[in-house]
């Protein structure tokens, strides 16, 4: 209904496609990061808040 106001704007439809491509490629990039990073690193990172308290051996794969 309001789109008629903007019918004179050039290539307004490309904005949707550009938005999608930007997000999609960014998302893929982050996924690549995650897949190529080693698990030991994640285990180390998630125990960062605990280093003082010596709880670093807990993770969710080992049942307590």
């Amino acid at each position, binding site marked *: *209904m309001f789109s008629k106001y903007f019918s004179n704007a050039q290539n307004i439809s490309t904005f949707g496609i550009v938005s999608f491509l930007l997000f999609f490629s960014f998302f893929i990039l982050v996924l690549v990061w995650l897949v190529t990073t080693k698990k030991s690193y994640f285990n180390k*990172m998630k125990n960062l808040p605990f280093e003082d308290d010596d709880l670093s051996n807990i993770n969710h794969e080992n049942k307590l």
Partner: protein
Amino acid sequence: MNVEKFSYDNQIVKQFSIATMIWGLVGMLVGLIIAFQLVFPELNFKLSYVTFGRIRPLHTNAVIFAFVGNAIFAGVYYSLQRLLKARMYNDLLSKIHFWGWQLIIVAAAITLPLGFTSSKEYAELEWPIDIAITLIWVVFGINMIGTIIKRREKHMYVAIWFYIATFVTVAVLHVVNSFELPVSLFKSYSIYAGVQDALVQWWYGHNAVAFFLTTPYLGLMYYYLPKAANRPVYSYRLSILHFWALIFIYIWAGPHHLLYSALPNWAQSLGTAFSIMLIAPSWGGMLNGLLTLRGAWDKVRDEPILKFMVVAVTAYGMATFEGPMLSLKNFNALMHFTDWIIAHVHIGALGWNGFLTFGMLYWLVPKMYGTTLYSKKLANVHFWHGTLGIVIYASSLYWAALTQSLMWKQFTPLGLLQYPNFLETVTQIIPMYALRGIGGLLYYAGVIIMVYNLIMTAKQGKFIKNEDAEAVPYKDMHEKIKPGMIHRWLEKRPIQFTILATVAILIGGVIEFIPTFLVKSNIPTISSVKPYSPLELQGRDIYIREGCLGCHSQMVRPFRSETERYGEYSKAGEYVYDHPFLWGSKRTGPDLHRVGGKYSNLWHFLHMENPSSMSPGSIMPYYPWLFTDKLDLSSTESKISALRQLGVPYPKGYEKIANEELINQANLIAEDLAKNGAVTEADKEIVALIAYLQRLGTDIKGNKK
């Protein structure tokens, strides 16, 4: 290896924690008052400083920026130091940050009841306070980034990314949305007008929710939930993925606040699409929080801290599902402008922010006082008061919203509105408003119990002002960067990380704004739309001062149920001179965009003096001061000049004769009132307000009388 000794600053955490509790009590009390004002309008006391329109922004600002704000800073200052193994960068900056922020809150608490407001939701504070906020925010940023730079830990834990994203995004949002041209010390006009102002405002408004109420709290969740549960976060991979997805997507979703409005359709669709996408990263965070408790659910049974956190994270999940649903056009058509939105934000505020804050405080205070919680039993009592409070609060408003919305849209078999009198749909839900107030009261009782419990905890312990610690300095650590370690590389470089996060959030904003600003010429100029007359302009500023837009929208959506009730739907071109836009976001009273010419001057006069005289049963406040206070004519000249500078086509030199025209128009209205039996002097504020209301929506034809 060389080990350094240092200490963590607990004093600043304690100060922010105390401020959290005090402002929480104040902000929620104001919330209770406004909730009951809707049931008992007498609580407005016919006193300008405590009318609903003026203290509703006080409630929202106090809860968001004072309660939640201080809680963020308390939580960040405690966890940041420990995660980075470093004291805060500079104690003086910490102090300036703390006292500066409290001064800003006090300034807000004084200026809002006085009616100094920009009218933009959650950004109501006037320009001098906006500048102060910017300065103090920068102090916070320097202190945080400084601490990150002098850290003794190679990597930045996920919580810290959330803190950084919060800092940069809130800075960008605040600055862009606060562009305004000062007219006097406490009055300014937004540099944007109409549709553009609406877009900027809701880009800000939505992302204030995202980056003030969500990302910092996710950061807090990633630290305090694992600490309280004594186990690491469920998936660190998931935390990276949902962090980047969240900050990238959130920034796009703002236009969903403007569905069916005069905003261009493509922008509305963009807002909807990204809002639906937001479910994924939001639920990623929720699941990561809940699954952290996997294998430890037995602990939740007897640990009130975990109970609070579980409900908080669940409420986060609920609110972030509800949000995208409300962004769907069909559901939005039903629920926008109703109390559903109020319920929705309170699931977030009371559940997510409130409960996570309480859980954090119950964990922090005993730690800092080297003791245990004074009473677990009282904490459990608090938990149940709070939980029941939220349930009662939300369900009563959901019920109210459904009832009212369906009544708005109900037609008779003959095709007429079944409830043509708006007030009928309001009186129907007042019992639900009462129930909502009771829910709020329960929640508040819980908070009082918590404050008592924490004071007693502090009394039985001894405050550890500086907590000793030791760690290996950063420069003594070495790690070679290998391929496939991009994110690790990034994590060690806070500056690069900050820049990338900024780019991620800027893309969305830029893509939204550029077309809307570029196609400005394509917002069809409606030749009959003229700038406001000086009297109408002054009346409009009274409308802004009294916070009328807290209850009245100025946006007739293109639905038959609305055009039947209010008149011709609103066009983008009608708002081109509106600095700021006043579309509103809630209809506690009817829409006013087509109110001009609908009633006589006398009707407005009597209605503002005593709303129930014209509309029996009305819950609108009385405005007696408008009848005694003289209109301030000294500001007319600077207002006209300021608006001309912003592009409103007042002729050159018009400001000199503006007051002359103003007096002429006021005399005409006063004469008309006198003819109909209401005697007033033409120089009273009520005359200006009537002039504005009678002008509203009359620029284009097709108006329903």
